[in-house]
């Protein structure tokens, strides 16, 4: 009989912990903070609509992860393409600032971005596109990046994926091609440590960094919610993407809410840990007056949008 295998390294343990959890946050323009607060208010309103039985189908909120697309948006240009996934409301709102169109899409009402055909997970507007099959958008983004490289050098294709999506072969086929062909591909991994109900440790052997390294693709770990610091830290690497050096940026982040609606099987302790890492109280504490003011505006805006869209005729 052979000796038992040594315990395998699990990637979650590899992540450096947020040393700066209590360090002061960098300066953030009102516009960005408002964007984060609008996304928070939007997602909260959605869960509320669900509880009242007013939404058809399913939806996945990005509560806790709102700062990720807002940070990225500061590094992206209008000519860049953005590919999103099932948890994409924040990605869309950070890019298009269009809660009416998105809510109308989710509810199938007049003004829906995609006529109500796509719904929460299938949205296309200009250079933004989301799909509901995990990993599927990476190869597509490579195709777009190939196009950009030839016709619009300097522009990039950015893809958001979750940690669980690293189970899909499409991810590796795409990383390989992006690296081989020097494509301007930026992969943003929102590693919230869980996929639906399955913790990262049960989904992933090795690590995201190791997987990027296997394809000679640059990897950056982001372990802070400080949007200004994130942008500073990633600026040079994102510029390099534009020159054809693909990049994987891994955000150590936290899902505050259920996977979709009311399907959270995590322990109270896990949920408490996610809450403790939330950006919201940290930004609130950093500048209480400004935060409260912008938050009130964001909530009022979303409340008005909701009242308006709910009353609209069908798409």
């Amino acid at each position, binding site marked *: 009989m052979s000796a038992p295998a040594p315990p395998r390294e699990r990637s979650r343990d590899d992540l450096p912990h947020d040393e700066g959890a209590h360090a002061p946050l960098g300066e953030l323009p009102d516009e960005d903070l408002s964007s984060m607060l609008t996304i928070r208010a939007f997602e909260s309103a959605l869960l509320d609509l669900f509880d009242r039985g007013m939404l058809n189908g399913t939806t996945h909120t990005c509560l806790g992860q709102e700062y990720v697309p807002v940070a990225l948006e500061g590094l992206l240009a209008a000519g860049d393409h953005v590919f999103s996934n099932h948890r994409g409301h924040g990605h869309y709102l950070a890019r298009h600032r269009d809660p009416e169109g998105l809510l109308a899409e989710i509810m199938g009402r007049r003004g829906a971005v995609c006529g109500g055909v796509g719904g929460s997970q299938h949205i296309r507007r200009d250079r933004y596109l989301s799909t509901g099959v995990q990993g599927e958008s990476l*190869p597509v983004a490579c195709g777009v990046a190939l196009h950009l490289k030839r016709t619009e050098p300097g522009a990039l294709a950015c893809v958001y994926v979750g940690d669980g999506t690293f189970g899909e072969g499409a991810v590796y086929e795409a990383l390989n091609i992006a690296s081989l062909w020097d494509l301007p591909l930026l992969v943003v991994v929102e590693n919230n440590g869980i996929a639906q109900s399955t913790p990262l440790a049960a989904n992933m052997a090795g690590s995201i960094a190791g997987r990027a390294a296997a394809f000679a693709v640059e990897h950056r770990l982001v372990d802070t919610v400080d949007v200004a610091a994130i942008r500073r830290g990633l600026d040079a690497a994102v510029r390099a993407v534009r020159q054809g050096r693909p990049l994987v940026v891994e955000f150590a982040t936290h899902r505050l809410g259920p996977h979709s609606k009311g399907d959270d099987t995590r322990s109270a302790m896990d949920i408490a840990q996610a809450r403790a890492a939330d950006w919201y109280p940290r930004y609130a504490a950093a500048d209480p007056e400004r935060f409260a003011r912008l938050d009130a505006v964001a909530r009022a805006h979303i409340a008005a949008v909701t009242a308006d869209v709910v009353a609209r005729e069908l798409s």
Partner: protein
Amino acid sequence: MRVAENLNAALHGLLEREPDLYVLGEDVMDPYGGAFKITRGLSDRFPGRVLSTPISENAITGVAAGLALAGDGAIVEMMFGDFAALAFDQLVNFAAKSVSMYGERVPMRMVLRCPVGGGRGYGPTHSQSLQKHFLGVPGLALYEASPFHDHAEVLAEMLQRAEPCVLFEDKVLYTRPMYEVEPPFALRAADGGGTAQVSLPGADPDCVVVAGGGVAHRVLEAMRSLLVEEEIVCTLLVPSRIYPVDLELPDVRQVFVVEEGTAGGTWGAEVAHVVHQRHWSRLDGPVTLVHSADSVVPTAAHLEREVLVSAADVHRTIREKLRG
């Protein structure tokens, strides 16, 4: 000119005319020029737009979809059509759905070329006819290569549809000459995705045989023996676009559909459904399906012959139906 040369010339012409068209696939670059040499000479003439890829069928189909989304055109070669199974997600869940799932029509100019079929002893994983697996997908049109259609026109039409298309190319066609039909039969070739017709001039046919390009020559052999031995006159119809089905039938009471695909959920069943809906009142009975056996495609020649549809099968089925 052989069918392989016609396909190759078609690709040369398209790449020349369309500066935003790409050709992607495993080993498609020169000097190799693809497993069946259909892409020969392309990468030397159009560097940067003809790309050999890693062995990643799903991803290269996705790359094609991304190019199409961004406004380019893309033709992907599956080395063997069987491997299109690995590209099913990108083709069916992404490319085809993208045409309509975003609320307005998104043009997707892309073609998946799939060498299919047996008769060459490549064995079960390299010999399927996959047509039936792609039927009935919204936003996905299916074509079959034929010796009676100019593929320059066919491929141009596929790209013009601005929705994903699959071109099934029966491998046994590659070495066959284009437009060859021996007297007394005569060919009326067709434009683009239209239907080519082979008939006996001046005679009213006893039946119509609908067939994809890959089995056309097997049907022609049967038509000859049926004429000589049984005085049965058949007209052969070979559509280039095989789905959605759109066929104009001459006024006959018996219709047969011949394909190499194996039994069960066949293309012929789809054709039969359309023919029944349009022409039921004038038919003597249901459309008769002729296809390969319900089996994998074996490697050994004698076993492969037992499974694949043959000229003798076509002859026997038509004779039994018409002469009892």
